[in-house]
């Protein structure tokens, strides 16, 4: 696993891309200010710590795009995705403008801070908006690669930057926007993981192997557009699928997998995700994962329970 945080890679990528592209502008809501100073110094006039006014920051980002620039808007997920939802919907999407939203603190990454700083429904909300690209780059190289592929295209792209990583170093050539990655072959069931939960899926695969189950593992770093072809081919082969995601059960990747596989005969499905309820407890990120069953043991047990042979 890379020692570098994905969030630090965000800052490093802004510096590198910003020096190559004079039309890149970064605006933050009073976070990541320190790590973005190299960008601010190298790209004068293109870094703004706008203040604590996320809806206006989002609209300003749309205005920057209207002026022909490539905005990057960054702060904590609930304050961008939920508070500024209408600004995303109308000022970017209805206007048909391009742009980039980089969040940290999705799901319960800010575990100790409580529900005001959680955001488990971001995939669901963003999926209601036409044309939004949703990515979940969970290693530094994934962030850098996906950002470079997407930031100047015609869409609004969301980058959900996690606080932890899955630990698999995919080569750059395998990381393509909108394409999933088959991480391990199997024949008995498919584990579809997004974000850091790939690590959990690989751990669950090992446990299941010891119990006679041969699990295929797919990794999805792009929620929209989704690589339906990869998922369909795998589940058509195995007939069973578990989706692992740090997202509430409703509206997440699991719902997309169900929709994608709905025409297959007799597919068995299980969801390892966050229940549709506030995570009111405090504790660490790992504590929350444990509580909702997002552990290798929890997922293996879920698969055995749901897919009893």
């Amino acid at each position, binding site marked *: 696993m890379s020692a570098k945080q994905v969030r630090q890679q965000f800052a490093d990528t802004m510096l590198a891309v910003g020096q190559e592209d004079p039309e890149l*502008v970064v605006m933050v809501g009073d976070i990541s200010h320190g790590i973005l100073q190299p960008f601010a110094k190298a790209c004068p006039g*293109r870094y703004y710590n706008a203040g604590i006014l996320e*809806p*206006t920051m989002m609209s*300003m980002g749309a205005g920057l795009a*209207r002026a022909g620039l490539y905005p990057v808007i960054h702060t904590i997920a609930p304050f961008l995705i939920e508070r500024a939802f209408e600004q995303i919907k109308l*000022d970017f999407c209805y*206007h048909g403008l391009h742009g980039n939203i980089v969040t940290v603190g999705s799901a319960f990454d800010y575990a100790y801070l409580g529900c005001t700083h959680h955001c488990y429904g971001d995939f669901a909300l963003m999926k209601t908006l036409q044309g939004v690209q949703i990515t979940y780059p969970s290693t530094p190289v994934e962030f850098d690669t996906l950002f470079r592929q997407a930031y100047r295209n015609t869409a609004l792209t969301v980058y959900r930057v996690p606080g932890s990583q899955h630990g698999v170093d995919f080569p750059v050539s395998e990381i393509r926007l909108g394409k999933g990655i088959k991480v391990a072959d199997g024949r008995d069931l498919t584990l579809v993981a997004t974000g850091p939960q790939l690590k959990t899926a690989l751990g669950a695969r090992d446990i299941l192997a010891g119990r006679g189950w041969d699990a295929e593992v797919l990794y999805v770093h792009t929620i929209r557009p989704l690589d339906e072809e990869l998922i369909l081919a795998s589940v058509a082969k195995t007939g069973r699928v578990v989706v692992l995601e740090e997202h509430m059960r409703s509206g997440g990747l699991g719902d997309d997998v169900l929709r994608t596989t709905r025409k297959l005969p007799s597919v068995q499905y299980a969801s390892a995700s966050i229940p549709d309820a506030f995570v009111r407890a405090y504790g660490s990120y790992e504590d929350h994962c444990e509580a909702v069953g997002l552990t290798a043991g929890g997922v293996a047990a879920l698969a055995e329970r749901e897919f009893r042979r």
Partner: protein
Amino acid sequence: MSHAIKAVHRGGRLLNRDLRRRIVDMVVAGNNGHIPSAFSILDIVTHLYDRVLSVDPDNPQWSERDYFVLSKGHGCLALYVNLHRHGFITDEDVAQFCRRGGILGEHPDVNKVPGAEASSGSLGHGFSYAVGIALGQRIKGAQNRVFVLIGDGESHEGTVWEAAHVARNLELGKLCVVVDWNQSGMQLLPHDDLPAKWRAFGWNTLVIDGHDERDLRAAFESVRFASRGIPTVIVAKTVKGKGVPMLEGHGMWHHRIPNAAEYASIMEALS
């Protein structure tokens, strides 16, 4: 200043009678529209298109144009009649107002209407969006000016004051806000001294009669439009429904379509 503030108008010649009649015709033909809101801002918007904005109907996306963001989207008939008069949109476009195949609706769609700069309607968006445009132009080293028209009711929205705060601190001198102060907002929240609020936010604040050509000309001519400087707000005292006594004020006419007798009466008042 107390809530007893009332707009003071010189009671001069009514401007833009022909455009007011066209707006009424569009509303009757389309069976939709906000006549009083459009009449409230019509003289401001007309002054902008006639004497202030540098725009090109043959090339609405001209890179050196001035931007005019109508954040108060429900006043869009005032925008449409000016876009029509200046050749951005056609007779047929006007005839198709609010019809399924047309490009003109009760709120403008930037991807349909040549010359429109924003898809407005939900209040409290356009000003922040205009701040982004003004900042973007300055980042590019461009000289484009950015104008945005907001309502006083719209000024209930917190985003208006977020935008005022950030634009002042960014010193976006090429940004000019016009507030249509027809006192709609004061129907609900009467303690609403808008000029004092804008001054408190550090803006160059002008208060004018929004239906008076001399005031409009003097106000816009006084704005310096420096690349980096204090932005200007023109708080324009207006009358909702201006020009037709039966439409003026804050009553039922906000979104009412005139019947035949009312139409005749309105047209007589505008003759």
